[in-house]
């Protein structure tokens, strides 16, 4: 009896400790990895921005304070890249969103073969980004690709040339590839949100005499708004960091016309092996993106407070 009483008294404590540590045990491996391979390098990367780090120069490594940032302030290539980033991100996100939304609306209506169509139109997402880049570079190549010829036939191009080597038009190449590649992401996310809208709301609205446009404006859009806001925010951040397509298709050229900040960082790190300067640029990009996210969140907050 005493023995039993004793074991009863001891068990809950041990069990409670075991229970309390369970979630930590489960999440520890993932956390350790994230901290070790992402957070620590991030902190290191921030510190590199204030140091002279050149891979092939054994005498580098010293602290140089804000020198990189001073250099950055004089770096015309960086400011060009910044402008290009705005252009690249804005156009890509806008087009992906518009076409993604239309696709989601089209797929939200039941029809025979919807499953198959869904699999096919979402397929570009599975295409490795570098391959998407190569693929579109080839499509724009007049030697083997049809696009220049078609654009010429439509009167959009004076001659069937490669737009990727035309400084005025080059940026449209990676943007086209990015839109093709990114539509599925928007479509999937928006489709998921669309399917979460209760059907009877539409029925109630049509009984109230609302036409399709009114239904879209007064039900669909408000319901989608939170998803749209968060998706656009995340995608904007993500796309301004996304250098793969540009590195593969134009490598920033011609004449730096398609160099965005992310690919510029990559060029500095990979081609010049100047990690310190690359980290300084990355830090500036990070700060800009944080400010952007913060602004969006604040804007949303004030709009919510007003509404």
């Amino acid at each position, binding site marked *: 009896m005493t023995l039993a009483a004793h074991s009863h008294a001891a068990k809950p404590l041990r069990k409670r400790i075991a229970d309390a540590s369970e979630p930590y045990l489960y999440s520890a491996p993932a956390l350790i*990895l*994230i901290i070790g*391979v992402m957070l620590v390098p991030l902190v290191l990367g921030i510190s590199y921005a204030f140091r002279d780090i050149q891979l092939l120069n054994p005498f580098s490594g010293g602290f140089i304070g804000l020198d990189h940032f001073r250099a950055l302030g004089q770096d015309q290539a960086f400011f060009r890249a910044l402008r290009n980033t705005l252009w690249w991100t804005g156009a890509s996100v806008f087009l992906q969103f518009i076409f993604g939304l239309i696709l989601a609306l089209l797929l939200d209506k039941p029809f025979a073969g919807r499953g198959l*169509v869904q699999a096919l139109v979402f397929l*570009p997402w599975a*295409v*490795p980004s570098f391959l998407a880049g*190569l693929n579109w570079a080839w499509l724009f190549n007049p030697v083997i690709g049809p696009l220049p010829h078609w654009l010429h036939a439509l009167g959009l191009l004076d001659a069937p040339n490669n737009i990727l080597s035309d400084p005025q038009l080059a940026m449209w190449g990676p943007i086209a590839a990015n839109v093709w590649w990114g539509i599925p992401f928007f479509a*999937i996310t928006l489709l998921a949100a669309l399917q979460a809208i209760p059907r009877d709301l539409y029925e109630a609205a049509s009984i109230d005499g609302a036409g399709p446009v009114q239904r879209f404006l007064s039900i669909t859009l408000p319901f989608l708004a939170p998803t749209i806001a968060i998706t656009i925010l995340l995608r904007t951040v993500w796309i301004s960091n996304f250098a793969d397509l540009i590195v593969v298709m134009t490598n920033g050229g011609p004449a730096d016309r398609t160099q965005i900040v992310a690919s510029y960082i990559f060029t500095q790190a990979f081609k010049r092996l100047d990690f310190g300067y690359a980290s300084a640029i990355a830090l500036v990009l990070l700060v800009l993106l*944080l400010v952007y996210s913060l602004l969006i969140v604040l804007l949303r907050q004030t709009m919510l407070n007003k509404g």
Partner: protein
Amino acid sequence: MKSKPVLTILHRLAILAYVVFALFPLFWLLKVSVTPNDLLYSEGVRMWPSRTSFDHYAFVIAHSAFPTFFKNSLIVAGSTAVTVTILASLAGYALSRFNFKAKYWIVALMLITQMFPLVMLVAPIFKMLSPLGLTNSLTGLVIVYTAFNVPFATFLMQSFFDGIPKDLEEAAMIDGATQFVAFRQIILPLTLPGIAATLGFVFTAAWSELLFALMLISGNDSSTFPVGLLTFVSKFSVDFGQMMAAGVLALIPACLFFLLIQRYLVQGLTAGAVKG
């Protein structure tokens, strides 16, 4: 609601346009890869060559480092997918089933990792891995890719676990199932779609990664597909047929995987979206 036939036709046409837009680039890749060299320029914009050949494929497989790239990528993407899925299942389960103090910090940390430019990590990671002998090694790549993919995969798995009512586990407990039996017979079968989606998602992501593969690997022996293909492109930049054949081959595993799991992926995102 009655749907007007005109609208229905417009709807189907729009869908068709999207399908064509989505598939045309891939179709073109395939078309050029089976066009014999002598027809490549003379039939440049024809939809399908008058004669097809698999010579490009034969060349790529037999006379390039392609099989090595393929094998390396398979190893890297496969190991990453499996590791990430295991880690993300554990973490996702913890986030879904437990209320613990650090939960919000963990979620915040994982969200933040989705925000910052990964390019920023190139240099520090290189500096960290090189004394460990993990640059130029597939293991190093797997570690890096695993870390990059764990946060999103964790959220994905969490949304799947959230979809399994806690009642089921409790019912199993009352039925006398041990934690292990409950996991194997109740949770696992019900999470299978989630696991498939996560595996597929991570596999595709790791299969496609280019920047870190370029930075951390030099030399053909441990190059992955993206890097290999890029070098291949610069080396054989005149032979489009061979490049595209290599491209088609690079595409196959990712697309197969995607077609298998896309249904679950949409499901998983739906579950996530419902919660907002």
